[in-house]
C-alpha cells in the first residue's frame, strides 16, 4: 500500500502533519511535558494517554502485518542497538526538559507564536549541525559499541500479548475511576485520550502508506543543511553527513534514497513534509481559536534554558539516530531493543533535567 509518487508522498505526510498539529495544539499534548511532570509534580494525568498511544499500536501494527498492509517489517529506519542509542537518549531526555518541549511539541507550540519554543527550535537545528561535524566519530562509536545484533527483543510476541492484556485491564480500571476525563479551561480543548487515539491512527496510516512510522528529526538536520548551504555553500559539500544518504529503500523495483543533505529526497517527502504540516496545522488552529500571538522573549534564564535544551535535543537525537516520536510512538509498540534502550535513558535524562529545573530555573 506504499505511496511511491513523491508528490503524493509529500502531500500525504503534509496532511497527516496538519491533522496532528491541530489535535496536539488543542490537547496541548507534549510528550516531554508528560514525562517531566511525573518527576516535577507527580502528575500522571496525561501519562495515561501516552500509555494508550503506545499500547493501542501493538494490535494495530500486528493487524497491519497479518493483513499485508505493512510493507517493511522491521522498518528500514531501525538499527541494531548501540551505546549511541543509550547516550543519545540521555542527552535528549535532559534537553527536552530544559527546552520545554520535544521535537514535536516544540513545533506546535512555536506555531502559536511562542518565542521560547522558537529558541528551542533554533537550538534543535544548531544541535543537528554540531552533530554533522562529528558524525564520522559517532558512526565509528556506534559500530564498535553494538549491544545486540537483533532489532527486536526476544519473545516480543509473547511480551506484546501480555502488554496489551495489562494495558486493557489498566485502561478499564482508569475508566471505572473516571480518570480518562481531564478538565482544562482552554477553548476547543480535546481530551488527551482522543489525542492519543488519533495520534495512533495517524501513525498507523503513515506506517502503511509512507513505509514506516513517523520520524521527524532528520528534517531538522535538513533545515540546518539548507541554511548552512546558503551561508557556506562550499564548506557544506565537504561535510560527510550531508553528502551521504542514510536511507536507501528498494520497493517495486524502485530505488528511493534520502539523507540529511540539502536536497529534495525521501526525507524531504516524509519527515520534512510532516514537520511543515504540524507547523501549519497548529498555526491554523491557533488562528481559528484566536490564540496566535507573539508575546516577546521570555526572561533571559528561560531563554538560555530553551536554547541549550534545544541543542541537546537536536544533538542527542542524532547520536541516538532518532527521537521520542520515532522510538516512543512507533518503535516501542514493535518492541525493538533500540526503542526500549532509548526510552529508559530518555526517562533518566528527563529525571536529571527536572532536577536541574527545580534547582535553577525558578
Amino acid at each position, binding site marked *: 500500500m506504499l505511496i511511491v509518487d513523491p508528490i503524493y508522498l509529500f502531500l500525504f505526510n503534509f496532511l497527516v502533519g496538519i491533522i496532528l498539529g491541530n489535535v496536539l495544539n488543542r490537547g*496541548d499534548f507534549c510528550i516531554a511535558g508528560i514525562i517531566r511532570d511525573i518527576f516535577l509534580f507527580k502528575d500522571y494525568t496525561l501519562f495515561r494517554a501516552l500509555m494508550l498511544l503506545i499500547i493501542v499500536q501493538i494490535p494495530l501494527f500486528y493487524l497491519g502485518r497479518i493483513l499485508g498492509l505493512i510493507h517493511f517489517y522491521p522498518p528500514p529506519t531501525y538499527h541494531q542497538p548501540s551505546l549511541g542509542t543509550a547516550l543519545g537518549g540521555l542527552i535528549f531526555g535532559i534537553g527536552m526538559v530544559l527546552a520545554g518541549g520535544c521535537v514535536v511539541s516544540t513545533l506546535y507550540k512555536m506555531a502559536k507564536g511562542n518565542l521560547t519554543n522558537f529558541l528551542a527550535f533554533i537550538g534543535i537545528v544548531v544541535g543537528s549541525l554540531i552533530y554533522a561535524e562529528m558524525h564520522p566519530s559517532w558512526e565509528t562509536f556506534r559500530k564498535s559499541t553494538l549491544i545486540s545484533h537483533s532489532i527486536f527483543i526476544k519473545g516480543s510476541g509473547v511480551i506484546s500479548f501480555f502488554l496489551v492484556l495489562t494495558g486493557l485491564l489498566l485502561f478499564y480500571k482508569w475508566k471505572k475511576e473516571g480518570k480518562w476525563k481531564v478538565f*482544562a*479551561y482552554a477553548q476547543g480543548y480535546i481530551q488527551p485520550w482522543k489525542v492519543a487515539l488519533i495520534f495512533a491512527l495517524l501513525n498507523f496510516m503513515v506506517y502503511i502508506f509512507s513505509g514506516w512510522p513517523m520520524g521527524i528529526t532528520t528534517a531538522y538536520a535538513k533545515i540546518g543543511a539548507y541554511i548552512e548551504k546558503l551561508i557556506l555553500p562550499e564548506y557544506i559539500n565537504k561535510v560527510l553527513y550531508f553528502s551521504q544518504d542514510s536511507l536507501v529503500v528498494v520497493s517495486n523495483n524502485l530505488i528511493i534514497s534520502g539523507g540529511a543533505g540539502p536536497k529534495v529526497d525521501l526525507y524531504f517527502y516524509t519527515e520534512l513534509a510532516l514537520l511543515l504540516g504540524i507547523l501549519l496545522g497548529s498555526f491554523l488552529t491557533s488562528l481559528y481559536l484566536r490564540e496566535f500571538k507573539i508575546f*516577546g522573549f*521570555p526572561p533571559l534564564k*528561560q531563554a538560555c534554558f530553551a536554547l541549550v535544551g534545544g541543542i541537546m535535543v537536536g544533538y542527542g537525537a542524532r547520536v541516538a539516530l532518532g527521537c521520542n516520536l520515532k522510538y516512543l510512538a512507533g518503535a516501542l509498540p514493535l518492541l525493538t531493543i533500540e526503542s526500549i534502550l532509548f526510552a529508559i535513558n530518555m526517562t533518566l535524562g528527563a529525571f536529571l533535567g527536572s532536577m536541574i529545573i527545580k534547582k535553577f*530555573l*525558578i
Partner: protein
Amino acid sequence: MEVKILDILGQTCPSCLLIALKEINLNYEKLRKGELKIVIKTDHRDATRTIPEAAKAMGYEVEVEKIHTYYEITIFKINKRR
C-alpha cells in the same frame, strides 16, 4: 481585596506552574485570609489545566476567563464571615 497580577505570557512549561505555585506559597497568609487575589495571565493551554487543578487541591477558588488571545486564571479564597 488586593489584586496581584502575574504576567507570564510567552513563557512555557513548566515555568508557568512553578511560578504560580511559588507565588501562592509566598502570599499564603494574605490568600488564606481572603485579602488577596492572584491573577495569572498565561497563553499556555496546559496551564489552564495544571494551575487550577493545583490551586483547587490547596483549597482555593479558581476562575478562568479567556481574554483576547490568552487566559486569565484568578486564584482566591472566599472569606467566610461569621
